[in-house]
């Protein structure tokens, strides 16, 4: 990791998840900002530049895909990496996310926060050794 921490915007409406991901990503050395809905997420994206967007799809009001579409329309050349966070993942939704420039998607339920951090690192810096849950001694 370089001297300036990579900036991540996390858009997630579930407080616990948002808090947990923010904590783990911050601990991993990222500069994390968060938003709880599509509208404030979009405003945050307008206010500053991020290296990576962790975007929940199911959001109150403007949903994740609408946010992404809006952002891509305004910033067609942004190098920001987008990872979709989802619990629902209908094929069409994911496909639409990819068409809007998302690089990847992951399912919150089957990834532990540390695995999520690992995927973020992968996306930003290339392959990382996999993390796994500790086993009982």
């Amino acid at each position: 990791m370089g001297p300036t921490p990579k900036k991540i915007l996390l858009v997630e409406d579930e407080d616990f998840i948002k808090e947990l991901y923010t904590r783990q990503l911050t601990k991993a050395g990222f500069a994390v900002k968060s938003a709880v809905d599509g509208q404030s997420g979009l405003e945050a994206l307008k206010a500053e530049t991020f290296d990576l967007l962790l975007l929940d799809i199911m959001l109150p009001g403007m949903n994740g895909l609408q946010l992404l579409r809006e952002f891509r329309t305004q910033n067609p050349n942004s190098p920001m990496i987008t990872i979709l966070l989802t619990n629902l993942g209908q094929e069409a939704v994911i496909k639409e996310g990819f068409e809007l420039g998302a690089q990847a998607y992951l399912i919150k339920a089957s990834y532990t926060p540390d695995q999520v951090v690992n995927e973020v690192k992968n996306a930003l810096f290339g392959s990382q050794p996999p993390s796994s849950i500790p086993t009982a001694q």
Partner: protein
Amino acid sequence: MQPEVKTKKTLHIKIALIITFAVITPGIAGLFISLTPILYLLAGVLSSVLSIIILFWILQPLSALIKSTGVFSDGKLNHRIDIRSGDEFEEAGNSFNTMADKLSKTIQSLEDERDTAVSDKNKFSEILSSVIDGIIALDFNKRVIFLNEAGKQITGYTETEIYGKPIDQFIHLFRDKEEILSKIYCTASFNQSTQLIGKMGKQTRINLVTTQVGSTVQTNLSCILVLHDLSREEELEQMKLDFVSMASHELKTPLTSIVGYLSVFLNESKDIPKESFDLLHKAFTAAQQLQTLIQNLLNVNKIEKDQLSVSSGPIDYLPVLSKAVEDLRSQASQKEIILTLIPPAQNLPKVLADQVRLGEIITNLVANAINYTNPGGKVEISTTVSPNAVQTVVADTGIGIPKEAIPHLFGKFFRVSSQTQQAKKGTGLGLYIAKSIIEKLHGKIWVESEAGKGSKFYFTIPVVTQSAGILNRDKFDSEAIQTGSLNY
């Protein structure tokens, strides 16, 4: 019954007397009184007139008889004649009365029978109308001869529109887009769910039962179709599925937090007392099991709705296998089971599958193996490559599966424990889901097992052939990150 009545001849005598009177009177009068021809003629006329008057008087009962016959035939069956002329007319009157008695009794009994028949008919048509299933009866020429109320509602037709007309001109029955009315027409034991298309293309999902009637040509009844409307049931089923889906999604959200927080806590709390660590670890394991359970419920829901979409694309198998196995390692060690993923002897080719679905299959099989293996046992996962597929074996040293249970093993909600009365947890959904997914991926799944000696679950996933690789090279091939389910 009636003794033969000796016919009176009184009337004959009466008429004979009158004629005699009419002819003889003027003659006799002529004998005693000398009459001019004119007077003689006058007397003749007078006596004739008198005779006719008397005749009319005699015949008067006849008109009474005629009148009464008329009244009776007009339907007044209680009407009787009262003639007391003492002659044949009286006799005719009595005969008439006897006949009228008998006739009205016969008519009464016919009417009673008719009433009974009508009330029976009403009763039966009432019964048929009250049946909530549609009933259509057909004659030997496939023409509709009966349609009950429910039948009208399901088909949209009324009796007048459809009676006497061939059924296949009005109603179409489809099973998987195939018109079946002509094929199944009154086969002995047809009982299946079909799509009925009635008036103006009205579609109804029904269960159709056909019955061949062994009737004579006289009744001209050859077939009865019973249509059971499934739309309400399907609506309820849909509501149930929607509810399960909604509830499962709602349960997942907090559970994701629980599992997330616990995993972070466990990762960071190496220095807490072992006992406390173990307690929390058990909570973590249980929460993970709950996640799998909810995921299984959602999957079954999808299978039921025929919405389980599996996107088949070329993927690296080993990372998927490793992640699924590693995620269960803590569960295995808690039960003191040795979980081993034997590294493949050669590089695995890319397989045509859906990463997340494939992960679910492995998770289900390995979790089952752990579940049904006693502490100290082993669960081993290995892979072999054939030209067309990668075969994976999940072998355990567990309690095994009784022979009689094996044919039912991949059915929904089936649990070996329910047969052997061994209390084991599980919903019995895992293998059903695994089979459904594997089949969608064009693979195979089977089991070899012996009670008490452990089980070996095998499954194959097709490998990417050159042409398939080209066909499936779409956006989902992105190797950026190992991610993603496509269908929740």
